[in-house]
């Protein structure tokens, strides 16, 4: 009798983008545990070549409809370094406010509509709405407040139009930002409650003890700036990132993995990594909520990531409230003019899903000569597969459907953004079964 078991999930649900899972177990030994991606490549790094510097923030936004601000913020700051542009405190504050909007709407989406159904036993947020109306309606309202913040500062929630190299096309009216305050304060209160509610979910065991990597700066929870630090003791400037991390093709996988040098080991980026490394920089209320939630640091169970996202949502609301109270953007200089010229620039920011790295070279003609982009999900991919390999022995007693569901749940802990990752990952499509009619 064959002792080989295989199971596949051809379309991973409730993740952004198109991915699949493939597992093969031979006599109790995990032979293949692959988090596959069949999303077609879109070649952004190549199509940026020959485009003007001013066009880059609008183009890179289109890499991802869930985290366009992350791409815009990273690109703008990398290009500003290349051009020698020094931004003003007002611009930096406004950028942080905009980024808060993206963290809020992205985390609210994942927590309520994509992740919570796993813990409460539903197949979607829509079906959860019947029995958990407060949770879903509250989640949609949180997401809408994040989107509204993006609209007021960025002009539009998906692919904001107001962001430019050098700052903002037009400073948002201070009155419009202050009008958001009641909603932002409600959001802060609701997300602090959520930390408590979500921390009472039942969490499967999920010990993974990854090496965490995030940006860190002394004075703020990381979004737009910081040095790259790791739980293995690394601390480097972002400019040295590619000396310590490398995108590699590995024999067993269809996808390029970004790994730590020199050993080529996996690592984790994202909310859990950030909280483990930067909890001291959390604003006060979010920090108290994290402490009261029973989370023990460092977090070593990826299923707790849903609690961490709620903590980060509270932190983003708390910061947005503080900024909105004092922001006088329309009385300040919010755009630095520049002359196109050649140069090179590197920057990284913390996207909702983790560290996002951009490197650009601008030619003497002022057009992009070279672009390198390393998104969070390509960095997490090796870690996700590692986690799958550790999880599998414990689910072998389950039938295939139940075991596959446990694996899917594990993958969703990372909130993988396949749309982002795929456009840079190296795919071997011949190893991925083409999907049936989706």
């Amino acid at each position, binding site marked *: 009798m064959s002792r080989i078991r295989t199971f596949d999930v051809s379309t991973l649900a409730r993740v952004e983008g198109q991915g699949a899972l493939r597992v093969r177990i031979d006599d109790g030994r995990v032979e293949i545990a692959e988090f596959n991606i069949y999303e077609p490549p*879109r070649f952004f790094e190549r199509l940026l070549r020959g485009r*003007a510097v001013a066009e880059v923030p609008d183009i890179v936004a*289109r890499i991802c409809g869930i985290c366009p601000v992350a791409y815009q913020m990273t690109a703008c700051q990398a290009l500003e370094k290349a051009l020698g542009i020094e931004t003003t405190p007002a611009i930096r504050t406004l950028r942080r406010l905009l980024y808060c909007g993206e963290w809020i709407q992205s985390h609210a989406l994942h927590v309520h509509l994509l992740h919570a159904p796993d813990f409460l036993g539903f197949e*979607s947020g829509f079906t959860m709405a019947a029995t958990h109306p407060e949770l879903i309606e509250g989640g949609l309202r949180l997401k809408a407040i994040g989107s509204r913040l993006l609209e007021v500062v960025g002009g539009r929630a998906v692919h904001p139009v107001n962001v430019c190299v050098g700052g903002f096309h*037009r400073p948002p009216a201070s009155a419009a930002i202050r009008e958001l305050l009641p909603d932002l304060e409600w959001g802060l209160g609701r997300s602090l409650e959520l930390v408590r509610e979500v921390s009472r979910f039942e969490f499967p065991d999920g010990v993974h003890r990854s090496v965490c990597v995030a940006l860190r700066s002394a004075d703020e929870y990381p979004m737009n700036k910081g040095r790259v630090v790791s739980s293995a003791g690394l601390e480097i400037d972002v400019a040295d990132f590619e000396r310590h991390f490398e995108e590699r093709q590995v024999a067993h996988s269809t996808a390029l993995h970004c790994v730590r040098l020199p050993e080529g080991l996996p690592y984790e980026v994202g909310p859990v990594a950030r909280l483990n490394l930067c909890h001291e920089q959390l604003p006060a209320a979010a920090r108290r909520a994290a402490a009261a939630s029973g989370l023990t640091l460092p977090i070593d169970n990826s299923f707790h990531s849903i609690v961490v996202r709620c903590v980060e949502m509270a932190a983003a609301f708390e910061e947005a409230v503080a900024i909105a109270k004092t922001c006088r953007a329309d009385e300040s200089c919010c755009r630095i003019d520049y002359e196109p010229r050649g140069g090179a620039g590197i920057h990284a920011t913390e996207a909702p899903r983790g560290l996002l790295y951009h490197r650009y070279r601008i030619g003497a003609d002022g057009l992009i000569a070279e672009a390198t982009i390393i998104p969070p999900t390509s960095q997490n991919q090796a870690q996700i597969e590692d986690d799958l390999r550790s999880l599998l022995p414990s689910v072998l007693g389950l039938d295939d459907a139940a075991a596959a569901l446990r694996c899917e749940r594990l993958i969703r802990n990372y909130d993988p953004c396949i749309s982002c990752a795929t456009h840079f990952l190296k795919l071997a499509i011949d190893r991925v079964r083409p999907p049936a009619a989706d």
Partner: protein
Amino acid sequence: MRPAPDAPPKPRLAVFKFASCDGCQLQLLDAQGRLLEITDRVAIDHFPEAQSRSLAGPYDIGLVEGSISAPGDIERIREIRAACRFLVTIGACATSGGIQALRNWGTIDDFLSAVYATPQYIATLATSTPISDHVAVDFELRGCPIDTGQLLELITAVLVGRKPRVPTHSVCIECKARGTVCVAVARGIACLGPVTQAGCGALCPAYDRECFGCFGPAEQPNLVSLTGFYERHGADRRHLARLVRSFTAWDPTFRGESERLAEPPS
């Protein structure tokens, strides 16, 4: 609200994705309260990004995001077409090929080797093309991303069996309605508003910047006249070529104009 026991079955909605950023389908989830109204009135039977349950077709409404860019896509869109009574393409990728259609002017080997170390492992088509190049499409919703209001209008119209009220006039009309000072006339910025279809609410000019055409061409656009005007007023021809060749670059009207502008002037 639970349907009465004898209520007719709800119309069935499905959401499909090809090469895209996911931003258009996520507009469905951004509709806040209106989202739950939709789920009250239609059965969302296939929407992998939002739910695990997937029921087989046929569907009453199929929303398709993304462009045709990989082997297998053509076969899959034909199957989807056959399964959907009313097929709607949503967004610049599905309706014109998207930003990834910039590859259509290069050689695919160049694009592959620029991004991928082992290009032979990548299966991709040489071009990124709109859905309507491959199957009949019942309605196109433009934009990068689409507008949530237009999406809800479309779903409502299909449910009650009328034509969706989606304007085909230019962004200029929306700019005037909004009271925005014309960036082209007052500030000399080359703006595609006069030739671009409305729908965004004339967003970019309200932020003191040019429209870059993400809703594609309006009815009866005259691009040659517009770019000629900008060129006579000092705009760089290469800048104009890039402006027309962006998020809806492969649309036939915009494509023809960017190719004309990219040629050396005779």
